[in-house]
């Protein structure tokens, strides 16, 4: 297969979903139900395309060559690129384009797969919605933008599609805009993301200012040649962190994680697609994309942010009752994991977790969708509109009524909890090992990262099993739960696919070691380009550092760099530790909710503060509403009033003064001049007695004033 045609395929993969968007927007009304078929089949093509790209990228070999015309192609085994001038300023052009490398090829498959299955799922789930076709249109728009992010080979395109996924997520969260909460959630998501994007954009500005281009390879190239923004490593670090701000927003990292749980207002398949599997992972993807330009400090920042996020959201998830909210917080927590992994240097494992997480989290959400769908139907059937179909306290005993959903849910719960034989175990175990290695290599306060990592691993296992047990085990707690029925195959099929994908053998023959799988071979940590003194020495890849620097000498060449070496050595301890912790988490979950040996209520009583802290989500929303939102609105109100009264007021006051001065002058000769005449009279004080009876009429006052004016004139000019 020729590289050009491969790029052509990728362009098609990019544009086809947009076609689905256009078709459904303009002809949705006519198509009616058919619109879903159209959209899904288009997505089928996209999926096919992405598989093709994946296959050829990995197994075909391209000899690098360059064809230059209006479009500029660059091929090599590493990367296939297509560039063209988007913004032509005469003196300087802003070039953009798309690139395919292993990372993007992999990501494409993930996106296409999840999107396709979610389309499938939605056919049944969204059936009968008044804006059925609109829904699929938005899904198409989203997939288009997501593919754009994946394929972008420059910051500008990245930003463009970054905003576009934001807007499509806005539209989909607020899809049921009659509900105020939904509309609010959409707005919140968009604006919070904007905050992150501002940082992202400032980062882009810094880089453009320094290098005059937005292309990744150009920028990295010039950094590698030692050209730094503002010739300062601090600014380079800053730029990295600013770029990462985009990820903080999109991937709902602390402190901007507040929008994601609210985003659950959207239809559940959307949550699965956008807010679990793909879009929120875009932040991780971005971080991985520009990984090469992060300095050690920037990486530390990233790791810390990831760790904090992972822990906070895990603690919150423990006490939530809304089925989807628990999953949402677990998503945030898992994203924290990935970010942390990238931060500590476990690049491969971070990306790996992104992939595995995509599958099992999508599965989890679709399961919840299936559950909620069933609950909804039975509630509808019973004519019961009070019981919230998403509240796990209203569920229970679903294991019997919905066996298949239960089985898949169980499988993926095991995966996310990191039980062996699952994909989740492979990736998570790798990350934990990475954190340990990181802590060991750097030491000091950084030990808190692995500690937090393990703690949240345990919490994850705990709250996931809590969810499983409370909703599926035991006896039905409501009639609604009792009358739920299993859904049809359209809904179940995607569940099965995802749950199967959560098994180990897809990734590695050895269920205990991801390193032996194929994934680490295709996703290799990029060579960092930042100046040597600003990077972790243990992340310096041997290939261009040379054997001598390696501490362990001979066998070093087995590993990419010192870090991987240490990580490898720490692999088994990490595994055992994580198994123990995860196991204990599961055990406690059973003790609490299955066997009721321990009573959660007593814990609430004993640690009211901790409980409410967790239950009220660490009060983030309250604080933000009070300070940020409230502050802004107050300020806005003030300035509006200011504008209404002060700024305008000044002008009007001026006008008033002029007019009334005019009025004053108008009456001048009535009051003042008489006075002046009297004054003159008194000064001349000659005919005093006569003057006492003076009554000047108007024309005479005129004369008097004229004369007085004359005198003034003479007086002042001499």
């Amino acid at each position, binding site marked *: 297969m020729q590289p050009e045609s491969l790029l052509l395929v990728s362009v098609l993969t990019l544009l086809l979903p947009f076609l689905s968007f256009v078709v459904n927007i303009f002809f949705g009304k006519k198509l009616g139900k058919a619109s879903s078929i159209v959209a899904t089949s288009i997505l089928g093509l996209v999926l096919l395309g992405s598989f093709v790209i994946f296959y050829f990228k990995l197994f075909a070999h391209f000899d690098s060559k360059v064809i230059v015309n209006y479009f500029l192609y660059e091929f090599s085994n590493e990367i296939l690129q297509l560039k063209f001038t988007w913004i032509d300023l005469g003196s300087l052009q802003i070039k953009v384009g798309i690139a395919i490398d292993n990372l993007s090829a992999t990501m494409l498959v993930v996106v296409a797969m999840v999107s396709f299955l979610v389309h499938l799922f939605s056919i049944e789930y969204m059936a009968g919605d008044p804006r059925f076709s609109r829904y699929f249109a938005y899904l198409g728009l989203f997939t288009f933008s997501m593919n754009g992010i994946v394929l972008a080979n420059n910051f500008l395109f990245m930003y463009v599609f970054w905003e576009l996924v934001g807007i499509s997520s806005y539209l989909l969260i607020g899809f049921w805009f009659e509900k105020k909460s939904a509309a609010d959630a959409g707005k919140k998501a968009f604006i919070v993301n904007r905050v992150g994007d501002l940082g992202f954009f400032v980062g882009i500005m810094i880089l453009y200012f320094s290098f005059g281009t937005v292309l990744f390879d150009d920028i990295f190239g010039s950094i590698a040649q030692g050209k730094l923004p503002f010739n300062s490593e601090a600014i380079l670090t800053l730029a990295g962190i600013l770029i990462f701000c985009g990820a903080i927003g999109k991937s709902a990292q602390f402190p901007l994680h507040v929008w994601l749980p609210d985003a659950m207002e959207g239809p559940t398949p959307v949550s699965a697609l956008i807010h679990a599997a793909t879009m929120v992972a875009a932040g991780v993807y971005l971080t991985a994309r520009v990984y090469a330009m992060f300095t050690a400090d920037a990486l530390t920042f990233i790791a810390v942010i990831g760790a904090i996020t992972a822990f906070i959201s895990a603690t919150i998830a423990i006490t939530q009752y809304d089925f989807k909210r628990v999953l949402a917080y677990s998503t945030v927590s898992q994203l924290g994991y990935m970010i942390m992994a990238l931060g500590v240097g476990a690049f491969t494992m971070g990306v790996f977790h992104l992939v595995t997480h995509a599958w099992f989290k999508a599965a989890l959400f679709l399961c919840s969708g299936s559950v909620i769908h069933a609950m909804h139907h039975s509630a509808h059937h019973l004519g019961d509109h009070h019981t919230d179909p998403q509240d796990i306290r209203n569920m229970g005993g679903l294991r019997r009524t919905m066996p298949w959903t239960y089985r898949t849910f169980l499988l993926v719960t095991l995966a996310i909890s990191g039980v062996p034989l699952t994909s989740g175990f492979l990736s998570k175990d790798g990350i934990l090992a990475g954190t340990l290695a990181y802590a060991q290599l750097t030491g000091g306060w950084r030990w808190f990262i692995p500690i937090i990592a393990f703690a949240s691993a345990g919490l994850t296992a705990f709250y996931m099993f809590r969810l499983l047990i409370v909703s599926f085990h035991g006896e039905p707690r409501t009639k609604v739960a009792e009358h739920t029925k299993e859904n049809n195959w359209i809904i179940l099929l995607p569940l099965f696919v995802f749950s199967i994908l959560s098994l180990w053998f897809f990734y590695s023959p050895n269920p205990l070691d991801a390193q032996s799988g194929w994934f680490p071979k295709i996703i290799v940590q990029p060579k960092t380009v930042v100046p040597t003194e600003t990077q972790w020495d243990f992340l310096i890849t041997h290939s261009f550092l040379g054997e001598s620097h390696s501490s362990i000498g001979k066998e070093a060449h087995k590993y990419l760099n010192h870090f991987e070496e240490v990580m490898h050595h720490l692999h088994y301890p990490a595994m055992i530790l994580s198994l123990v912790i995860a196991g204990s988490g599961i055990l406690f979950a059973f003790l609490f909710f299955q066997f009721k040996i321990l009573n959660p209520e007593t814990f609430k009583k004993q640690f009211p503060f901790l409980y409410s802290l967790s239950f009220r989500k660490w009060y983030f929303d309250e604080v933000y509403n009070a300070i940020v939102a409230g502050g802004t609105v107050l300020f806005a109100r003030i300035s509006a009033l200011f504008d209404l009264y002060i700024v305008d007021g000044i002008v009007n006051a001026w006008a008033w003064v002029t007019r009334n001065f*005019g009025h004053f002058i108008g009456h001048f000769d009535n009051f003042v001049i008489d006075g002046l005449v009297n004054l003159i009279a008194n000064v001349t004080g000659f005919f005093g007695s006569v003057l006492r009876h003076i009554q000047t009429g108007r*024309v005479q006052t*005129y*004369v008097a004033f004229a004369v007085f004016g*004359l005198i003034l*004139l003479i007086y002042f000019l001499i």
Partner: protein
Amino acid sequence: MLEILGFVEDIQKSLFLFLPEVFLVVSLILAILSDLFFKRLKFFNAYVALVGFFAAGISLFYIPKDQVGFLNSFVVDNFSIFIKLIILLTNVIIILMSFNSKELTHNKLSLGEFYTFLIGMTFGMFLVTGSLNLILIYLAVETMSISSYILAGYTKEIKRSSEASLKYVIFGAVSSGLMIYGISLLFGLTGSLNIVEINKILQTSPIPSLAFFISIILILMGFAYKISAVPFHFWTPDVYEGAPITITAYLSVASKVAGFAVLIRFVRSTLVAETSAQQEIWTLISSIDWTFVISILSFLSMTVGNIIALWQNNLKRLLAYSSIAHAGYILMGVAVMNQTGVASVLIYSFIYMIMNLGAFICAMLIANEINSEDINDIEGLGYRAPVLSAIFSIFLFSLIGLPPTAGFIAKFYVFSAVIDAGLIWLAVAGVVNSVISLYYYVKIMRNMFIRGIEVEKEPITFPALNLVVIFLLSIFTLVFGIYFSPIINWANFSANIFVK
């Protein structure tokens, strides 16, 4: 004996210079006579006057220029001819205007005297523009003043008209008294009444500054009262409001222009030491900064006029104050004290004549129809009389000085002259004033077009003659706003004041 002969010869020669005035005098006499015989024919004198003005106008183009006559007391130059033409045009328009003026036509007394006095006043103004002798100046000013007193009170059974004339006559008498007192002082200081000789004497022999200054100021006040410059403007609003609107229009244009003419000639001939050859900058005699004096007058006039006008609700009174303000703008040109200044004054006077007369005719027509001069009564007029209102707004925009109307050109050249002379503060004051003036001019348009749309009143029709007149005037206002080279060239040609 020979002296006598010389005088006779001189007078014979001078009669040619005097041809237009002669025509005026003849028509004046004719008018008086006809008024005795054909009392029946209301407008007979109007035609007599028109003929006289026409004859005078024609003769203006044939009399020899740049010559002095009558013992160096009277001069004819392009400057005076320009002014005289403006005055004649004003007269013609006023006469056309008077045909439809209800105030004038709807009363017992015949109009004969009205036109007679018009002619008389015109004669006075003609003299004023050309006279080089202080006494002649005084006589001419008095001639126009006295006729104008009578004209102001012409509709004598109307209370406010008579009141106007009373105020006018008292104020006028006082200022003429002050002027003649000043003249007497100047005569005492220089020993001559001929301003050209005075100028020579001043250049040769030094004179006590204070007395000289006072005398000049007193004389200037006589002129300032004619052009109603602040602080000698107090008669203006009352007289303008009280007098019949035709007369108001006449006073606001003709006598003002005449006043400017005599003012400029007096300053140019008396106070100017010498003029630099190529640049025509006037350097003034004596220590006093006359430019500053006149700048002050100009500043006061426009500011006070505009600011008080903001509060007027009577159309005539508003236009009166606006005319004070415009006097201020024209004075800017005088203050410049060079030929550019004079040219800009001429340009402004000519355009001011067109637009102000137009505005006054519109005001008169409106007042005739709705029997009120209150601008609150013209609400919705734009829908009852669209054409008239549109034309009226053209004049108002011209008075504001917005392109593409002639008013803009007038202001443009005045400001150019002022900036060129470096009086930037005066220019700034001028533009600020035109912004202030915007407010009250627009107030009229607002009432015509924006207010009173709801009330559906029957449309108004106007006498064709005056509609034609204002239509022509508005056309000129626009044409001169877009293509103004002729005026400028003509004004520059006329800006050259003849000095013997």
